[in-house]
């Protein structure tokens, strides 16, 4: 989340509330045609040049939240076009997950170095002297960069004593670690779906709110209304997300009041994943594989799969904490219908995988969950509850902060085999993950445990969060210390078989 994009965040969340309300109140879906007027009332534009465009963009957000595709502006289609297909009580995924709302995109120019009016045409003009392709000259008013010649190395910018040269980039492309942002024929952002790993960074970075993902909240609420065996599991970064006065216990109880039978910490699955990965590492590195990558971040795993197919087998075979938690629930109740609630949108794709889809049936974000709380008038901080939430170990609860996964696996592996030295290295944004994999591919990370995360700082910075990373990091630390178990090996909820060497 980017806290300073206040208006964009608020519109996005109001859309979640609107759709959740429609689901809870069984509103006739033809009303969707009017919904944009609830979110953008009146007749005066507040955010864009006119209110018609504001509402048009909100209508696409409403559609995406329903799980539908963005419409083409070139032909007549109703807001409700295709609505029957998603008016169901199970996940109905229509590709793609991450979408550009084309008419919200302002077609920002692509990356370039530009001279601003800070330029004083100084005598030294280092900008011209350091340019490797002779693209900078001194014009009448200021330095001029010949954009045809410029190779965007940025040396002129670094050399300028007046900070007069800036590097300009589209926010969506600048933040994309896999270069998946391209342009359509009008210069608007277009996502190359072959490259995209659905980390969602572009969604939160676009200052025009032109990129959005699809949601499953409508179908989830429908399921909650008709089905009894609904379970929720909540990712380790949930601590502190739902208001400064709300305790973890109140969050869990609040989720139950939405219609869930029970709620389990995904940190429990993290403990199980830790045990699997620790054993796998001890067993396979270095005899079978030169290094091992962690498996919990789906965008990281997808990136390795698409960009480093030969090294993909070095990513741990262990299932992610989401899947392990779901398997734990399924063991207790084979008919369980399970919803993952987390900071992540990439999990929406992971849940569709052939080997995962029977365990995880819905995936929503914390933001979307907050929308459901508001739609259902649940005041979390006023819930009275004494039962403690105690499913996981200190190490499992640390998974959501960068470095936490590797720490858990390393510590556990060393408890299992104290003779082993384990080197770890972490990267927590996709660009750095790519760099790390290049080094590993070149053989420079042999014997290492590599922790890859797509979001800067870890899951606590996921696109579906509500609270700042500093706030959540602190809260996670407190919650870690309250854990009843220190390591996964102490966790009484896990089968002893898995804890044996």
């Amino acid at each position, binding site marked *: 989340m980017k806290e300073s994009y*206040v208006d964009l965040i608020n519109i996005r969340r109001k859309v979640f509330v609107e759709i959740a309300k429609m689901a809870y109140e069984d509103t006739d879906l033809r009303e969707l045609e009017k919904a944009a007027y609830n979110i953008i009332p009146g007749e005066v534009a507040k955010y864009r040049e006119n209110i018609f465009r504001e509402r048009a963009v909100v209508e696409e957000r409403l559609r995406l939240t329903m799980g539908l595709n963005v419409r083409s502006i070139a032909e007549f289609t109703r807001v409700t076009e295709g609505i029957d297909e998603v008016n169901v009580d199970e996940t109905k995924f229509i590709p793609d997950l991450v979408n550009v709302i084309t008419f919200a995109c302002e077609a920002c120019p692509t990356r370039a170095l530009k001279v601003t009016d800070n330029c004083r045409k100084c005598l030294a003009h280092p900008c011209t002297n350091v340019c490797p392709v002779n693209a900078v000259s001194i014009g009448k008013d200021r330095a001029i960069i010949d954009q045809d010649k410029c190779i965007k190395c940025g040396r002129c910018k670094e050399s300028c004593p007046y900070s007069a040269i800036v590097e300009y980039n589209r926010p969506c492309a600048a933040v994309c670690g896999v270069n998946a942002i391209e342009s359509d024929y009008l210069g608007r952002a277009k996502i190359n779906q072959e490259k995209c790993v659905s980390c969602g960074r572009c969604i939160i970075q676009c200052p025009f709110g032109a990129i959005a993902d699809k949601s499953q909240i409508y179908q989830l609420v429908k399921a909650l209304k008709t089905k009894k065996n609904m379970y929720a599991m909540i990712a380790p970064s949930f601590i502190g997300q739902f*208001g*400064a006065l709300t305790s973890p216990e109140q969050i869990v109880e609040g989720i139950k009041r939405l219609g869930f039978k029970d709620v389990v910490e995904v940190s429990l699955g993290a403990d199980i994943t830790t045990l699997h990965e620790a054993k796998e590492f001890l067993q396979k590195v270095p005899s079978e594989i030169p290094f091992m990558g962690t498996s919990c971040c789906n965008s990281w795993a997808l990136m390795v799969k698409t960009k480093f197919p030969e090294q993909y087998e070095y990513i741990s075979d262990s299932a992610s904490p989401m899947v392990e938690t779901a398997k734990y629930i399924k063991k207790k109740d084979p008919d369980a219908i399970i919803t993952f609630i987390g900071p992540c949108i990439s999990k929406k794709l992971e849940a569709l995988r052939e080997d995962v889809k029977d365990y995880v049936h819905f995936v929503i974000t914390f933001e979307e969950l907050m929308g459901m*709380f*508001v739609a259902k008038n649940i005041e979390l901080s006023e819930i009275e509850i004494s039962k403690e939430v105690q499913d996981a170990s200190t190490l499992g609860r640390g998974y959501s902060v960068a470095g936490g996964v590797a720490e858990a696996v390393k510590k556990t592996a060393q408890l299992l085999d104290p003779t082993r030295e384990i080197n770890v290295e972490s990267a927590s944004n996709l660009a750095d993950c790519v760099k790390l994999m290049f080094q590993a591919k070149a053989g420079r990370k042999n014997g290492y445990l590599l922790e890859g995360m797509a979001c800067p700082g870890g899951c606590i910075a996921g696109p579906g969060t509500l609270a*700042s990373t500093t706030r959540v990091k602190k809260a996670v630390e407190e919650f870690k210390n309250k854990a009843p178990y220190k390591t996964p090996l102490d966790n009484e909820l896990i089968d002893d078989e898995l804890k044996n060497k």
Partner: protein
Amino acid sequence: MKVKVCMGSNCTLLGAMSLLDQIESLREIIDENEKEYRDEELEIESIKCLGYCKDTDADIAPVVIVDDDVIFNATGQIVMEKIMDKMRI
């Protein structure tokens, strides 16, 4: 000076925690230039929903109270300016 930030569901949805972060960050600015500000503690409190939004159909979240001044549709911009104006000598 006392600032209260509502942490009800509506307010949390619409950025109450970010407002709290922003207001808390003012302490740094004030501490760095002590002489320019009143020698008075900036008390910041998160409070439970006061029910203002339940009494009306209008969108009023987030709610922040600066001393006795109740601010509806609070933004960082408005709230921080108000606090800084009151704190400055």
